């Protein structure tokens, strides 16, 4: 059995990659995918900790994360579709009508 540290370090790396994607990309769909990546990194940490503590709680929370991720993804994509219909772009920098 591997030490927990391996999994937590991997989870931290994947989370950081997700954050990087959110910062550097200017395409809403890819930004949402980066968010999915971060959620998965957290899921990995939850499952690793559940295994380490010998408790099912961590795994149960992952089910909720998945439910929230599904809701977030579909609502986000619906917003993306609506915005694209209005402005013909996916660049978040272009969406600043409220900026006066």
């Amino acid at each position: 059995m591997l030490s927990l540290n391996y999994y937590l370090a991997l989870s931290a790396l994947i989370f950081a990659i997700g954050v990087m994607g959110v910062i550097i990309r200017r395409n809403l769909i890819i930004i949402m995918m980066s968010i999915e990546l971060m959620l998965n990194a957290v899921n990995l940490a939850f499952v690793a900790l559940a295994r380490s503590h010998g408790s099912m709680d961590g795994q149960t929370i992952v089910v909720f994360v998945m439910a929230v991720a599904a809701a977030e993804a579909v609502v986000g994509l619906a917003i993306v579709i609506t915005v694209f219909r209005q402005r013909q772009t996916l660049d978040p920098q272009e969406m600043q009508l409220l900026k006066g």
Partner: protein
Amino acid sequence: MNAELITFYILATLLIVSSLSVIFQRNPIYSALSLVAALFFVAVLFLTLQAPMLAILQILIYAGAIMVIFLFVIMLLNPDAREPRRFLWWGFGSLAAGILALELIALVIPRGAKVWSGGGAVGPDFGSPKKLAESLFTDFMLPFEVASVLLLVALIGIVVLAKREA
């Protein structure tokens, strides 16, 4: 080097490469496919952590449903793949992500060593559907109901959002 460690390193390398591919591909379709691959490797990592049910759910929900919707939207909008690349911003993003990764790793590693309770302490049916359901329908009953309401709200919300004004 035992077999478990080698498996972990292979999976970790594949996961990191596919995750980097998600954020560096120019074409959103390739990004989405890289993300599907990354989700697969996460599912296999779940298997190594004795969570077979979650591994299957991961494939069923993420790869089978959420990512198909992503692909559907990408194909529907067919957006222009070109986007401006500003090197200052890229440098800042990489730096921020690097610092975050270092801090997180520095944070978890000593803690991880402390909470580590030794392997093999769990039964063979750990992570089975039965165990997961027991936990879900006893300790987490209220969050479960709230999650179902959340999904219903999301369902109604997207119909309202995506439907064209008649």
